[in-house]
């Protein structure tokens, strides 16, 4: 199809505008492309001369920071497993069983999950975790995140499961499978893409969070990377720019990789939950 001139010019203008917006979004992040590889990085953007990995070497030698990455991993993976498993079971029950009042349960869950935000519930969560004697443990962070993320995870997954024909499990049962067999052999593998989305979403949430671990953890040994990053502030708060940049990059990598994975595997789109 041949484009008329105005249409062609319009295309160019659109492309230019989109590229400009993309550039604006990129600007605050460009610093992270250069600074980590620059032994003398400051807050301004300078192209490293020479490019070096010395900042990373220093960061790798910082036991506390490395331990913190490990802690982040423990907390994120623990939380993700709990969220994934509990949300899958619960969402499956909400979708497939005929428990009386499950509609109301879903409604109430959604209501609570949107009403009770982290900032509003800080005090009671601290007091509850403290009363349970779990303060200053990975478990405290894992459980708190699981509780907080579950309603939304359940809701997304329930929508996903609702969109899957019941005939999968029905055919399995007619063929002789017990409900448990039907769930594990048939339903679970079919729901898996939905679970992956929820799990990735939960991981990114836990991995990046600052406030909850900051309040619930007390000892340095358990702090996740989001808190440990402040160890690259010297004395009383001046950032050690070079190390901070390198550490930030390492700390961001899992999220970037997950993004690439999800957009490659599923396309970064919406699943259930938010469909209108």
């Amino acid at each position, binding site marked *: 199809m041949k484009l008329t001139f105005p249409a062609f010019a319009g295309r160019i203008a659109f492309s230019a505008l*989109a590229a400009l*917006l993309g550039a604006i*979004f990129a600007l*605050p992040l460009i610093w992270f492309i250069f600074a980590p590889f620059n032994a003398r990085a400051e807050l301004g953007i300078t192209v490293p001369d020479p490019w070096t990995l010395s900042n990373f070497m220093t960061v790798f030698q910082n036991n506390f920071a490395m331990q913190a990455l490990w802690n982040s991993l423990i907390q994120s993976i623990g939380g993700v497993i709990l969220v994934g498993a509990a*949300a899958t079971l619960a969402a499956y029950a909400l979708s497939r069983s005929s428990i009386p009042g499950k509609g109301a349960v879903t409604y109430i869950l959604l209501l609570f999950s949107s009403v009770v935000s982290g900032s509003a*519930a800080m005090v009671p969560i601290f007091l509850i975790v403290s009363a349970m004697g779990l303060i200053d443990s990975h478990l405290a962070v894992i459980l708190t995140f699981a*509780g907080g993320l579950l*309603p939304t995870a359940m809701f997304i997954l329930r929508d996903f499961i609702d969109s899957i024909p019941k005939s999968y499990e029905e055919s399995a049962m007619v063929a002789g499978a017990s409900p448990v067999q039907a769930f594990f052999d048939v339903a679970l593998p079919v729901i898996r893409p939905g679970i992956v989305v929820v799990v990735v979403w939960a991981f990114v949430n836990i991995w990046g969070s600052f406030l909850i671990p900051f309040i619930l953890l007390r000892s340095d040994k358990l702090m996740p990377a989001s808190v440990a990053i402040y160890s690259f502030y010297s004395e009383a708060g001046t950032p050690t720019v070079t190390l901070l940049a390198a550490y930030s990059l390492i700390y961001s990598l899992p999220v*970037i990789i997950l*993004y690439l994975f999800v957009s490659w595997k599923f396309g970064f789109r919406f699943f259930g939950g938010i469909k209108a």
Partner: protein
Amino acid sequence: MTAEPTTPVPKPARRFALLSNRAGAVFLTPAGLLVALFVIIPFFWVIFVSFTNRTLLGRTALNPEFVGLANYFALFDPSNFFQRGQFGFSLILTTQFVLASALIGQALLGLLLAWLIQTVPPWIKRLTETFVIAAWILPEVVIGFAWFAFLDRDQGTLNAMLTSVGLPRGDFLLQQPFWVIVVFNTWRGAAFSMMLFNSAFSSIPPSYFQAADVAGASSWQKFKDIALPLIRGHVVTDLILITMWTFNTFTPFLLTNGGPSYRTELLSIYNYRVAFRDFEFGKGAAVGVIIMLVNLAFALIYLTIGRKKRV
């Protein structure tokens, strides 16, 4: 149907379901416990604590007293309601912040981006999308620091760019802190609106636009007359969700610490300061209750609209 003499039913018929009620209950238990413990109990506890003068330090830590609505009266004390660092100031600041950064900033920018990337070459779409989404998914502490460096008065990238074109430096974090967090939050959150609108646009059959092309409509006309009316539902969804998220966001704290002079102290940050710096748990809980009331209003609107659409 009550008396059916010809069909004596030996035992009460259990309705078949893919998952029996008992199994369903078992499936729901772990999630139910976790949600009850970390969402529902805190909800009621925060209401309870808000009626006490509980603190972490000082006399009322050990023996908190029931003070009725005193915490609420203190929050709404007209003598200092609008002062910086007080509840009223934070409330108004947060309202302005939501209006400017979510309803105007994120929604409009997201809409514009979603519309633009429908038509641009794939590589520009990919690149733009990647940066917009990166702003959204990178850890908040990293983003906070990126902006701190970006806006630095002496070395920051923004000032370097301004001076290179002959404009004066700005001391943004100190002089325009409110606009800094507005722009910051717009930047941080536009991805969600973009993706939501993007998926909304791509759910419109292309034939609608082709028909308009045949009729000779311009891009703007197509947007205004076809796309916008068709995604109205998505717009409502988007506005309510980003309003709620922005209302509760804590991330600007990592950029400004709520300052200078409380000028960026959003309700969530105010809540944090009262509860975890001044250690006034009772008053902090009262702030939390008000935050939750606002959330409740939005959630009810959202669910009402959502329900209507589902039927």
